[in-house]
């Protein structure tokens, strides 16, 4: 009796194991045969660079595995829309996740979210040339210097690679770490350091209430700690024309302007320049002495701070009012003016409108929209 039961048990265990193994093998083989996309070629910028890769992963991760870093903030989930890439061929169908992040015009031009495009066959894409020089860096924090009650200057020393090659006006993506139950995130900050200081990166950062990254930078990050970043990104830069330049920025928006102005000092750029610094009250101003000093050092530079919320009875001698009103009052009436703006989309739109009203050509207005 006992002997027969043992045989039964062994048979049933053996059968189930066999079925389990057979099905697993079936699925593994099926996956290899069905979802195997083989080797695919990615053609970048019309032959400028060609990659041969294993198909099956997203365009974003495939490119990043090959040293080409498309910006991304959400880690490939399709929610941040930072990773837009122009796909000329081979991108497959437009997915439902991508659709809401793209305008009709972008879709017509073949723009896709690279984190949602799967590489299943040969693909041809077009990316801004700057992306080729994007690298990931490890750096250590040299100092965290408070500039106002809610703005600090972060200076980093690059460890690996030890130098960064960028032009004044570009930005980097900083990687915060997990803390207090909040996830690690990527956030963009413009570089305020100058390109010749290639071993360092300086950032001007304003605390965002309950912001995941800025809270980490202000409250948790210590001097001497290691931090990761990638860059340089962005097409915001000074032109070579040496035409009269109007700079408008406030708060952390000053970062790329600060880089541009100090670069102008370094190469003795002779163009006449005006910097309109919009702030709420006196306690929101910073770098005031340095900027006044620049007035003497640069051939033809005028620094115009403007306060929009300063109480009327204080001894402030400078401009008061909305930045657009101050610009209207004080902007020089010279031919061929160029403008460089950095700030929120609302501020930029208002300033662009004002400048165009004042006769500045729309195509000579350059900006880094905080978007």
């Amino acid at each position, binding site marked *: 009796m006992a002997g027969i039961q043992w045989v*039964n048990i062994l*048979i*049933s265990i053996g*059968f*189930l194991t066999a*079925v*389990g193994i057979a*099905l697993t093998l*079936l*699925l593994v083989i*099926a*996956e290899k045969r*069905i*979802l195997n996309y083989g080797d695919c070629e990615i053609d970048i910028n019309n032959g400028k660079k060609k990659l041969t890769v294993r198909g099956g992963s997203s365009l974003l991760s495939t490119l990043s595995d090959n040293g080409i870093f498309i910006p991304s903030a959400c880690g490939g989930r399709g929610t941040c829309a930072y990773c837009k890439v122009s796909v000329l061929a081979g991108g*497959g*169908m437009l*997915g*439902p996740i991508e659709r809401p992040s793209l305008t009709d015009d972008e879709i017509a031009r073949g723009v896709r979210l690279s984190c949602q495009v799967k590489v299943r066959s040969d693909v041809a894409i077009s990316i801004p040339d700057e992306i080729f020089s994007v690298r990931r860096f490890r750096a250590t924090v040299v100092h965290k210097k408070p500039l106002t009650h809610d703005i600090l200057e972060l200076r980093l020393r690059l460890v690996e690679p030890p130098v960064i090659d960028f032009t004044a006006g570009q930005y980097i993506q900083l990687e915060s770490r997990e803390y207090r139950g909040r996830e690690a995130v990527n956030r963009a900050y413009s570089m305020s350091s100058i390109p010749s200081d290639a071993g360092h990166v300086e950032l001007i950062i304003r605390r965002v209430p309950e912001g995941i990254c800025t809270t980490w930078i202000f409250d948790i990050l210590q001097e001497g700690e290691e931090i990761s970043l990638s860059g340089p990104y962005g097409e915001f830069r000074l032109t070579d024309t040496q035409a009269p330049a109007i700079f408008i920025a406030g708060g952390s928006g000053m970062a790329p302007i600060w880089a541009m102005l100090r670069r102008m000092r370094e190469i003795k750029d002779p163009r006449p320049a005006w910097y309109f610094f919009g702030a709420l009250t006196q306690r929101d101003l910073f770098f005031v002495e340095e900027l006044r000093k620049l007035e003497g050092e640069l051939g033809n530079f005028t620094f115009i701070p403007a306060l929009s919320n300063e109480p009327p009875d204080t001894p402030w001698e400078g401009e008061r009012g909305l930045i657009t009103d101050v610009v209207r009052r004080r902007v020089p009436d010279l031919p061929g003016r160029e403008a460089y703006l950095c700030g929120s989309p609302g501020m930029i739109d208002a300033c662009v409108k004002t400048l165009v009203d004042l006769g500045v050509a729309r195509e000579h207005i350059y900006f880094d929209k905080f978007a």
Partner: protein
Amino acid sequence: MEQFTSSIVLSILLIFASAAFTDNILLARFLGMCSVIGVSNRVNTSLGLGAAVIFVTVVTTAMNYAVYYYMLVPLGLEYLRLITFIVMIAAVTQLIEMIIERLSEGLYYSLGIFLPLITVNCAILGLSLFMLNKPYGFIQTLAFGGGGGFGWFLAIVLISGIREKIDEKRLPPGLAGPGITLIIIGIMALAFVGFSGMIKI
């Protein structure tokens, strides 16, 4: 010979019809309701899920038939049918998901998320188990599986059509969602009771 084939065809049609209407797996047997309650708020998604379910029921009833009669019975392991069927269903669902992903991106996008849901659909396991109680051959089992799947498809599409037309804001707050869905299913089940006894298979 003609009579033979025509009687087979007739029996297949009858089996299909009984599985789809008089013995509707959702409305007469009340299986597979969880997916319906969760997913039936839009007709488009219901169409996609229903189509995938039909596909899976046909393939799994056929494969389970083969495994039961040619492996489990000879080895005397009928008592393992439950776990074997479940494992087969899971594997088949996974396979079908891979095939669809490869063959048609469009279909994968519209079905994609719902394919893994099918594995836990009790209607599929139910059909495989009910098949064992019937004296069917292989072709008839296919008709049974296809009919059962089609019946489920019909039910979920009808329910979602009704739900889309209902303005949930006018319901008492507690009834929105699962509450009203169950009531709809109940009323439809009453209607399908009218079919009972029509086909005796």
